[in-house]
Every structure is written in C-alpha cells, then in structure tokens.
C-alpha cells in the first residue's frame, strides 16, 4: 500500500502534513467486493498485518485481555 501525504490547514498552524485516505477510490463490484487479503502484496506487509490484526496470537507486545505475569 502506498501512503499518500496530504497538506491540510490546521488552526493556528497554517498547514500540516497528514496521512491521506488509505481506502481505494470507487466501490468494488462483484467478486472483488469480498477480496481483502489480496490487497497485501509483500511478505512484510502480510507479517505486519498478522502482528497487528491477529495480535492476540502473533503480536509481540500485546496479549489481549489475558496478559498476565505467569504464563498458563
């Protein structure tokens, strides 16, 4: 995914750079509607998603509600 940086006016600070939209333009049609896994192209991106999205199991510093001192 290519990140787009946009300039936006900010109160008292003239202009600031912010991360632009991360969704794709338009509306997916047909079979494309359900396809989300294909959006991750590189292995790094996939691993990053796992660490974050499936953090309950694969996150290094996040153990969900079960975080405890002594492991089960």
């Amino acid at each position, binding site marked *: 995914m290519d990140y787009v940086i946009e300039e936006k006016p900010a109160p008292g600070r003239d202009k600031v750079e912010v991360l632009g939209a991360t969704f794709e333009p338009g509306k997916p049609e047909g079979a494309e509607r359900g396809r989300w*896994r294909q959006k991750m192209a590189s292995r790094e991106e996939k691993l990053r998603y796992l660490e974050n*999205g499936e953090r309950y199991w694969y996150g290094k510093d996040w153990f969900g509600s*079960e975080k405890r001192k002594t492991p089960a």
Partner: protein
Amino acid sequence: MAEETKKSIDPATIQMLEKAARDGCRVVFDRAESTKACPIGAEGNCCSICAMGPCRVPVPKGREETPEQKKNRTGVCGATAETIAARNFARKIAAGAAAHGDHGRKVTDMFIAAAKGEAPGYEIKDEQKLLQLALELGVTIGDRSNNEIALDVGEILRAEFGKQEGELLMLKRAPLKRQELWRKLGIAPRGIDREIVETMHRTHMGVDQDYQDLLHIGSRCALADGWGGSMIATELQDVMFGTPTPTHSQINLGVMDKDAVNVIIHGHEPALAEMLAVVSQDPEMIEYAKSKGASGINLAGMCCTANEVLMRHGLPIAGNFLQQELAIVTGALEAMIVDVQCIMQGIVDVAQCYHTKIITTDARAKIQGATHIEFIEHDAIESAKSILRAAIDNFPNRSGEVLIPDVKADLIAGFSHETINYLLGGMYRASYRPLNDNIINGRIRGVAGVVGCNNARTTHDDAHLTMVKELIKNDVLVIQTGCSAMALAKAGLMVPEAAALYAGPGLAEVCETVGIPPVLHLGACIDNSRILMAATAMVKEGGLGDDISDLPAAGAAPEWMSEKAITIGQYFVASGVFTVFGVNFPTTGSKEVSDFLFKDMEDMYGGKWAFEPDPLEAARLMIEHIDKKRKALGIDKARERVLYDMAMRRELE
C-alpha cells in the same frame, strides 16, 4: 402434498418428492417411513461389541423400576446401562474424530506433495495464512520460498496425527484459562490418532467400565478433533485454496440448468472439487460438452464440499444432505461425483431410475453399483478431466421428464475468522472490538453457533429455520456451518437485507452498519474449528470474561444425524459451550449418563449438553443460557457507552 410438507419445508424438495413418487422412485424420505428406528438403540441401550450379545437393556416403560430390577438390567458380561450408553457415546466420538482426522491427514499429505512440487495444479494460494502457521509453529520465514516454509509446516502438522506424548500444538490457540483447565482435568489431547485409538480400546469389551471416565476420555478424543484434525484441515485448505472471503452465490435445486451438462460434486474434501472448478472452465471441456449437444457445463456442489467451493469460488450449491437423491430425481443430472462422508448408498438405487452416473473417486469410499474413477492428486488436472468427461458422455443418455424446480436463493458466504476480524476492524486495526462492544452494550445479546446435518426423522430444514429465526429475532447473532447453513441460505437469511426483515432491532442495526447478514456462513462442518477461533478471539479481545465458557454464547445442532456431529458437540462442550441437540439423543436410556452430560459437565468444563427436539424451546434454552452469562458478566442491563466531554470531566473532578 400435505404429506410432503411434513417431510420438508423446502418447496424445491417438496416438488422433487412429488416427482419421485410419480416416477416410482424410492428416496430417503420413503425409507425413513418404512424403516422404523430401533427405540432401544436410539436411546443408547443396546450393546453389540461382543458375541455374547447384542445385549439390550431398555428402561422399562410405563412403570417405576425397583433398585433390584435396575441392578439386574445389565448385559451378559454385567455391563450396566450406564457403561453401555457411555461406551456407545464415546465410540461415536471416536468415529467422528476419525472421519475429520482422516480428512485432515489427507489434506496434509496433499499439502506436502504440493510443497514438494509433486502435485501439479495445487499451490500455495494464501501466503499470509502460510506465514501465520509458520509463526505459530516456529518455522523460519526469512527469505525462504513459500514451498520451503510449507514443507516444514506440513511435516510438523503431519506429525500431530501420530504424536504419542505432549499435547497438540494448536491447543495453544485457546484461551489460556481453557488450556489450564484441560491440563488440570487431564484431557489435553496428546496426538490425534492416539486419542481415537485409546477411545476405541477403552470401549472394547471388558476395558473401561466407569461411565464418567468413558465420557471424560471422549472429551479428550473430541478435542483432538476440534483443536486438532479439523483445525489442521481447515488451516491447510485455507493455505492451498485461499482463506474464504465474502462471496456471492446461489443455492437450491434451481441452480441446475436443463440445457447444460449438470455435474454435482458431493462429499467433504475440497481437492477434487477445486480441480473440477478449474477444468469445468477449460474451453476444451466446454467444447466437448457442446459436441454432445449441451450448452455448456454446470458444476454445483452438495453437502460440505459445496460449502468449500462456494466460499472460495462462489460455485452454486444444489442443496443440503437430504436433497442429494432429489438432484438425481430432476432427470437433469449427468453425474454425481462423490468422495467421502454423508454419501447415502441410496443414491445408486435412485440413479437407476434415471440416467445419472454415480462416480466414486476416493479409494476409501467405493459403493456397489457406482462407477469408480479414482482421483489421482499427483495428476489432478488430467484426473479431473477424465472424471468430467465421463459426466459429459452421459448427457445424450437423458430420457424421461426433466423437471428442475424453479427455486433458488441468493446468499453471501465466506465469513472466516480472519474475515470477521478484518470486517469489524479494518486493515489497520483488525479487531473483534466492535462485536464485543455491541454485546456489552446489549445491541447484540449473544452469539449462537447453529450447525449440523439434516435428519430424515424430522421435517427437513424446519428446526434449523425455526431456531435461527427465533435467535436473531432476539438479537442473537448466528454463525453457521454445514447443512444447517444451507437451510438458512435457502430461506433467504444469508443476505444483508435479511437483517431488516428478521433480526431484532439491536442486531439489525449492527448488521446494517457493518453490512453483514444476521446469519453468517463460516463454511463446512470441518470449519467448526473457525467457530472455536472466533470464540477465542472474542475472549482475547476482552470485556467478556477470560474463557469461552464466560461468553454469552451457545451452540446447537437441531437436525443432527452423523457421528461427526456428536464429536463436534463434545468438543464444543469441552471447550466451554452450552450445546443443544435436537431429534433424539443417544444416551437418554441412561439417566446417570444423561445427567452427567446435561448437568455435571458444566461444573467441570463450563459447558454442557442439552437435548430438546422442539426448536423454539431449544432456542429459548440457548437465550436463557446467554442471559445467564450476561448476568455473570454484569452486562445484563443495556448500557450505552458515554463519551465524556470536558464539562463532564470537570464535573467528575
């Protein structure tokens, strides 16, 4: 007609039953009428495991039994009614675990062959799922190729089947508290095959004769399925064929096409179905079909194979378990291609009334009178083509009336755990948080897994539909697999629009916001492991307790029939889920065994069984259980999240 409506609520099924009667063809619904169920066996009171028997030990009807009579109510060997019922029950669990386990093993073998490049046509389609397994199993990723990683993953998972000690690796996915409990109770499975073998040994004549112990080891065997054989099958299928994502398709006998070569793939393992989906698009095969006078090839699925290819290819489904013979009755089915599990031998007889060819394809499942063309995974494309050619060759043999019911419904399927997580949280913070929050604030009352088969002893699809409608009306989100999912899809409940029509206001609001149906299709029966994962994710997300047994959730199989269903039920119970079965229950002949399953198990596992053939009453039991859990969590009163503004904060200070 009135008679037919007692058999099924599905109009396509009723039409085909009428046609079968006109054609003089006997189908499962007729056989169920002429072959009465044995009342003693139905209650688990018959033992036939040694040649001194079979011994029947029924409870006397219509009179109270004296303690002396009860004491004497044993088999020749002295086995009590409790031992007999528990042994039968444990054996069903072992059979179901064996079926799912052998499915998982076959998938694993194929996965390894694909990784080695020895199964052309199969490949790693979902790298992300592969990486997920590699992380979980400690397989080095680095710059290694997908096939190198897959080979290690496959070898590690294949070893799970024959493992002799330790515990199954995927148990580590479960909530930590649940893992501790399994270890404490001694039911953490060691290896998949080992638990099945030990259950078969312990239920052999003259071995384990303590009903509680038998049911306990039954739990271990069932867990070896849910968190072992089934889970491995699901995960490796996802890697090879793709993790399901929402897909639109259609369902019911109306998906057949009178002008095309109709081919139905029926059974459970997706390897052949995947390849048929590919080769049926091959211009050479389509041309071949045209050369026989057909307009093309129309491939549809039936039973769990259908769910597999539906979720990954959007292939239409012709129907669920009790419709397998009725697809033949249309007179428009050129071939029914079968592999393993839930294939009624009756299809061969029914096919003789018409022109349909029954083609068995798996070395483990042959049927007298069927044509056997073995599917060779190592030469999958050619093998699938030769099977398809046999179907096409049969097109000119059509004779008699062709009648395809004009009945079909749209559905959206493919809600894997991964997709639910993504849908609720998005790419940058995939999460179950919105689900948990909406359960906590009361918009969603709870979650119910409604799964399982059809059963010719009860009105086809009726219990599924009645139960699920009642649940969603009461704001319970329903997740489904197997033939149960198909029943709801046929009734039009698996499209987002169904939320406004059938769901309670809270659930409807959430469904509309997320854009999901109120009834989610998670896949085939083997994919009940996805329900375990979804439940675990809800626990780990937080706010709903710290074990599956704390969740406001329940499970059901209102029209169950197969041994696999019992295994699934038991692994749900041993994972902490309240699980209700309909139709009949195979231990009702023993009060002690039933009490142990229906009451005592809750103290041990946090989950228990219930038997309730009335689907409305069963739904009520599930809702009651959900409310009990909400109360225990302190979320029994609807509460909105309050966003504090500065003035409110200042007030607090």
